[in-house]
């Protein structure tokens, strides 16, 4: 009874959709979170009768054959790459990226991570790090006697010192862009890693080559739209119930079969 298995693939698919929605809603307030979307494709088909088969000696051709589908499978959980709203925080090391691009982060494991979460902090030594304490690349150290950091749209960091009137340039933040952002691998902690699908990172100055710009004193909000998630949740739940209905029907037909002698 293949119908049982087909309906099971449908239930699994809807269940996965609910899991993805649950994760999106859980990350409603995560800085710079992009919602994920489960996408599905149909499974292979069983060819019962091929379209275009010759059905008679005079060369008549069957206009359409019989193909039976075998269900559904998840094809991708893709990221909806969208700009989240910018929320003013006033923090001098709170950076939002307006447009495309990621901050490069040196991971403790030795690799490079990428993030759009610009809630940066300073270590005791004055190094600029992410909330998790990973250094932002290129390495920028803010001297202890610096005050009033100002970061412009291009990522240039200026600081005022006690004895000087003009702000001094102390470093410049860069952005990394990807050909296919959807291909990045999320590793948790608002971090992504590059993959063969994303292409290699193009590191460049903010505001150039299609990269976005920095906004100091703002943080990018999660771009999850609760209304959309809830309508999807309703759809997923009903889809699950419909598939369950098919299982019930298939089961009852099977039991009718066993009752003939």
């Amino acid at each position: 009874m293949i119908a049982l298995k087909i309906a099971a693939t449908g239930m699994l698919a809807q269940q996965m959709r609910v899991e993805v929605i649950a994760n999106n809603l859980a990350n409603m307030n995560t800085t710079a979170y992009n919602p994920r979307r489960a996408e599905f494709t149909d499974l292979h088909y069983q060819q019962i009768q091929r379209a275009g088969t010759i059905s008679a000696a005079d060369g008549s051709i069957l206009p359409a054959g019989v193909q039976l589908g075998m269900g559904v499978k998840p094809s991708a959980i893709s990221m909806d790459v969208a700009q989240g709203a910018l929320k003013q925080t006033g923090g001098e090391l709170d950076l939002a990226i307006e447009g495309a691009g990621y901050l490069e982060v040196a991971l403790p494991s030795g690799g490079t991570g990428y993030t759009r979460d610009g809630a940066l902090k300073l270590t005791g030594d004055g190094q600029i790090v992410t909330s998790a304490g990973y250094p932002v690349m290129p390495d920028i150290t803010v001297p202890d006697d610096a005050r009033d950091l100002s970061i412009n749209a291009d990522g240039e960091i200026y600081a005022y010192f006690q004895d000087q009137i003009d702000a001094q340039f102390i470093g410049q933040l860069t952005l990394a862009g990807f050909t296919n952002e959807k291909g990045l691998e999320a590793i948790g902690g608002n971090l992504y890693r590059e993959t063969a699908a994303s292409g290699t990172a193009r590191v460049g100055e903010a505001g150039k080559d299609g990269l976005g710009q920095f906004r100091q004193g703002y943080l990018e909000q999660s771009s999850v739209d609760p209304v959309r998630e809830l309508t999807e949740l309703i759809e997923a739940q009903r889809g699950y119930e419909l598939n369950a209905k098919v299982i019930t029907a298939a089961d009852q037909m099977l039991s009718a079969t066993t009752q003939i002698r």
Partner: protein
Amino acid sequence: METTGYIALTRQSGLLKELQVVANNIANISTTGFRREGVVFAEEVRALNAEGGGIAMTSARVRFTDADTGSTTQTGGMFDFAIDGPGFFMVETPAGERLTRAGSFSTNAEGDLVSMTGYRVLDSGGSPIFIPPDAGKVGVAQDGTISIGGRPIAQIGIFEVENPQMLLREDGVLFRFEAEANPAENSRVMQGFLEGSNVNAVTEIARLIEVQRAYELGQNLLDSEDERIRSSIRTLGRIV
């Protein structure tokens, strides 16, 4: 006298196939660009008896693909496309060119526009579409023209075939075509939208109930046929 059982059997096995089709439709209720399918039963005359009456058996002969457009939902994705009209996108798979309605595309590491399953999307001339990595905002017009900063760079190909019923389904919401695919005339590309599955839950559940009840009816028929044969054997046995 044994044929009754066999005739009922053709109906029963056909109903099982139809159940499978309904199950597949419902399983794909949220598959982007999925087209629901149905089965048509045809009468097959297998034998004529001496009196000239026919014995008709049934078989699932024809599958049809419902060409209704599924509901489109706005996603806002730059590379999410829906087609308004009967056309299809063309993708290049290792096994040849295939048509699809699932317009959830993205770029790959080389910068080519690819489908969800990683196949290159073809332009109106049949070649892959390259999106420059530093493109920024990409706009797509209703005729499929892709433009970056007001400069057209390619045109997404929208194709149609003369007889959509001849299309063969393949996994990954793809359709294989045998004849030639021509540029579509009455189709428009909508950027930022995706076409959902055109499966209608109400119709499918109605069909499901119908199939189930018809199946039970067939089982009843087989039951009473069994009873009839048994009683005739019993009666005949008593006479001997």
